[in-house]
């Protein structure tokens, strides 16, 4: 008799069921459509699209990127055409991929965040939003709300009022105690927290004697940050009851499993998309094989095993 021994990778984040725990990190996957030549988006648990703000933003001046050991710095500064442009020009193009569409939301005041969330709430195919209180590359807002529990609470509350579906709050690692911020988001109504956003960093061109980035400092991502991220996920998963989504330098299936063992219910893959545009599909495949090798029939069994 044939038995179906394919392990179940399905997980649930708030009210949102995912076919597997793998999502694309905002800002590294465009609007999804940039990657369809390389990968079918139906292999993803969800695709999280670029940070969207109330007004259009031009972002920071070039240069915005510097390669660093096992990673990169960026200082894009939330370049996007604003929520109205997203609704009128982008949403229709991307709303029917067979996966969960999650929009990342940013702002410079709690009201801004709430307003964007409210407008997105009218789009039925936006299954969740991820609130970015952790962008290190903008002068106002962004990370400012993610470095104090009061800031995290005020933004989460404002969005919670305007957004009826699954609400994820994306946390900054540039804090003394990330669990304090996570608890504030949980208390204000977040359905999940995702972490970590980029670590503040800096690089200098010693020949030109100038900073590599126009903004001097930027956000570090890639495998270089992974041990920091795993540690913070482990701490946070023990401090909150809502699901923790882990990200930071995930490049392969083993990295994803590492985060789940440390307490992540799901993961996001970011910078690795730049090097291998089909990496997310490969990660899902590898996780499934890992489960078979380890006799795990349901991926939820391993969450927070450490």
């Amino acid at each position, binding site marked *: 008799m044939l038995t179906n021994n394919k392990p179940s990778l399905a997980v649930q984040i708030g009210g949102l069921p995912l076919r597997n725990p793998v999502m694309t990190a905002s800002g*590294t996957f*465009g609007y999804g459509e940039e990657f369809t030549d390389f990968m079918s988006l139906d292999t993803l648990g969800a695709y999280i699209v670029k940070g969207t703000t109330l007004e259009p933003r031009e*972002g920071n001046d070039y*240069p915005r*990127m510097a390669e660093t*050991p096992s990673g990169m710095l960026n200082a894009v500064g939330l*370049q996007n055409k604003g929520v109205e442009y997203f609704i009128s020009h982008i949403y229709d193009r991307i709303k029917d991929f067979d996966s969960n569409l999650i929009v990342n939301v940013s702002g410079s005041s709690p009201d801004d965040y709430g307003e964007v969330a409210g407008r997105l709430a009218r789009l039925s195919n936006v299954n969740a939003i991820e609130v970015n209180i952790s962008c290190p590359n903008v002068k106002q807002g962004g990370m400012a709300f993610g470095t104090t529990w009061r800031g995290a609470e005020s933004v989460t509350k404002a969005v919670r009022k305007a957004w009826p579906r699954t609400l994820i709050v994306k946390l900054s690692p540039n804090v003394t105690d990330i669990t304090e911020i996570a608890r504030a988001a949980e208390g204000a109504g977040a359905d999940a927290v995702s972490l970590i956003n980029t670590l503040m960093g800096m690089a200098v061109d010693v020949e030109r004697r100038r900073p590599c980035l126009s903004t001097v400092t930027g956000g570090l991502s890639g495998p270089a940050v992974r041990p920091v991220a795993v540690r913070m996920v482990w701490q946070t998963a023990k401090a909150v009851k809502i699901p923790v989504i882990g990200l930071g330098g995930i490049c392969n299936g083993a990295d994803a499993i590492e985060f789940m063992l440390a307490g992540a219910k799901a993961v996001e893959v970011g910078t690795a998309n*730049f090097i291998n545009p089909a990496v997310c599909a490969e990660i899902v495949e590898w996780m499934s094989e890992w489960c078979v090798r380890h006799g795990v029939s349901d991926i939820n069994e391993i969450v927070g095993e450490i």
Partner: protein
Amino acid sequence: MKVVRDFLLSANVELTPRFSLLTFQGELPEGIRPGQFAQVRIDDSPTTFLRRPISINYADRDTGTLRLLVRRAGDGTNHLCDMEPGSSVNMMLPLGNGFRLPDQEGSRPLLVGGGVGVAPLMMLGKELAGKGIRPTFLLAARTADELLLLDEFRGIGDVLTATDDGSSGEKGFAHQHSALSGSGPWSIIYCCGPAPMMKGVAAAAKKAGVACEVSLENMMACGLGACLCCVEKTVRGNVCVCTEGPVFNINDLTW
């Protein structure tokens, strides 16, 4: 359609200590245009994390041949230039928009290249010649020794040269060459090279009222328009060089 796949390095010729010509064999996608580029993954180089965007020097789908002209600019490109034939190299291609070719047979295009910027002009020149349009190349380098692939360019069209030290052609930078003084016979100017040279060529083209396209090489991460790192300021605001370029009409730039 863009693809990401392995190619076999079939030949690696060191043209000068700073420049190498790499020839690859593999299955090429349809419709590669002059001016497009490949994102080359550099394996086994501990200090190289991201892919390297390299202009396509020549591509022939029928024979599965792809050529890249590479300048040693750092660890990543050094590693690439040092690779032995028989090695496998993963590339994502074709990326970017490419040059817009003229329709009229009577066109007189001038193709200006400086340093490794001559790379995309080979495929562009060959496509123009294939349409019955004879290109004129203005090729510039530091010295005569660093004028790359001269014989092959001479097989396609007329070749003018400029060198910093005067060892070949006119002494000076490409944009100071007499071919660009006055209005000249040119119907369009295509240009790729260091930014100061391209700005000089763009200024000369504007003054002469000649259409001009330049190919930019801003630092990139993804090459797909996802990360928004390689942006150039244009009259439409910041746009990605990897998807809306690398080739721009100079009227769209804020130079």
